[in-house]
């Protein structure tokens, strides 16, 4: 065998082997059985981290000088619907946060009313699922205070956040952004409905007029453009049933890592 044919033979073998591996991998990684097996890890992450952290452990808080010069805005940077644009034009004066679902007292809270409630300010690090981090200063009302005011019914287990932005246009409306968290996170002292960022009213790119801060999880859990929150027993009937826009697209519901 001449060296050229040998090289060609080697090249072909390697290409074939490579192709086999890649297609085998893709077949495996698309199989539902494999994916449900892989989901054990998410379950394990959640259980172990919940035990290690408990309800109270606080995310690190930073100082003014640590704040990022550039805080990247990801996902939707402007919902750009007629309704939202009208609200934004009026500086969200006519906007009201609707609180409903399994609560004793459904509420409608204007930005002014939210601002008049006791607030918490925290400088925290935002970790995106993509891998980057930014530090920002957030001021808002603790979600626990809003929940307390509305009063949870005993069967409430999750809080859902419905947002003004549609990330993907779909016929059935499942492209609308939403998120769900459980009560451990909802009642955590650092879980805020934030209306200020870096001492200014939240801008549109970062979720005006109100966004969730959930400091012990990744960025995609922290819904922006929150219009309505709801207490639920289960999130199976929302969207595609996985508990959030990105969760419906394969991402973990528990995003602590």
């Amino acid at each position, binding site marked *: 065998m001449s060296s050229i044919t040998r090289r060609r033979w080697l090249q072909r073998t390697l290409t074939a082997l*490579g192709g086999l*591996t*890649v*297609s085998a*991998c*893709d077949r495996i*990684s*698309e199989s539902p059985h494999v*994916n449900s*097996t*892989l*989901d*054990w*890890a*998410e379950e*394990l*992450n959640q259980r172990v*981290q919940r035990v*290690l*952290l408990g309800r109270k*452990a*606080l*995310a*690190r808080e*930073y100082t003014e000088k*640590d704040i*990022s010069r*550039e805080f*990247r805005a990801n996902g939707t940077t402007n919902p750009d619907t007629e309704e939202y644009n009208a609200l934004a034009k009026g500086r969200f004066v006519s906007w009201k946060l609707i609180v409903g679902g399994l609560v004793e007292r459904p509420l409608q809270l204007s930005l002014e009313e939210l601002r008049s409630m006791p607030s918490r300010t925290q400088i925290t*690090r935002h*970790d*995106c*699922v*993509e*891998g*980057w*981090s*930014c*530090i920002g200063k957030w001021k808002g009302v603790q979600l626990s205070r809003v929940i307390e005011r509305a009063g949870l019914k005993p069967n409430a287990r999750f809080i859902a956040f419905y947002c003004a932005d549609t990330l993907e246009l779909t016929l059935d409306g499942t492209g609308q952004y939403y998120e769900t968290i459980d009560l451990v996170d909802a009642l955590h002292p650092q879980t805020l409905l934030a209306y200020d960022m870096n001492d200014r009213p939240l801008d549109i790119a970062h979720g005006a007029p109100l966004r969730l801060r959930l*400091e*012990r*999880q*990744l960025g995609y859990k922290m819904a922006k453009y929150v219009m309505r929150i709801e207490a639920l027993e289960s999130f199976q009937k929302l969207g595609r049933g996985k508990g959030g826009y*990105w969760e419906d*697209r*394969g*991402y*973990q519901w528990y995003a*602590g*890592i």
Partner: protein
Amino acid sequence: MSGAATPAQAAGSDRALADGRIAFYRHPLAVRLTHWVNALCLWLLLMSGLQILNAHPALYWGEISTFDQPLLSFGAADGPAFPAWITLPGFQDLAGGRSWHFFFAWLFVLNGLVYLGYALRSGRVRNVLAPDREQLRNIGRSLADHLRLRFPHGDAARGYNVLQKLSYLIVLFGLLPLMLLTGLTMSPAMDARLQWLTALFGGRQSARTVHFFTATALVAFFLIHVLAVLAAGPLNEMRSIVTGWFVIKPEKRS
């Protein structure tokens, strides 16, 4: 000589072969099993890790991402930084990459604990992995021999040589734990409990960078490891890590 450090139970397992060579039981079952589970985990962790890195192929130093001044960034403006054939899944899928990564991270940790438990209980760390004084004194000669691809034969091949011992110790008790610790440091939840870890690595983005370079060091170790297996006698080496039995020629002492 270095071979004298072989544990007594291994010497007791010698089997004389018909051609005068000696087969001895070199790798106990626990070592063989954990070796291969570990190999599988590291391979899949590497591929799914590159999938995750593809989502934001830039590294930074410190707590945060200084987007305009990355420490290092990969790839061109269009297309993934790391090609599909080396990522898992074999198409752009951050969610899938994360699922694979965390599953095999758990398997890697559990397997590591099994190995650690075995290695400490059996005295393997002290008897098999720790180099003795004489070996350390002769490290220069061992290095020179290795660079000429001259490996120990006969009884000297019963135990690990000094470079093997040091590199295995560095991988087992340095690089692999470092992968786990830097991985945990990137978790916003763990950070609420283990803030000293983040401080140790100089920030979350530093930990992410160390995670990448430690993985690179493991790839380098893998390449040298495989090269050494090929040079030292691939059949014999593979037999020993699959069945446990390693064959030496006692008459050929060097």
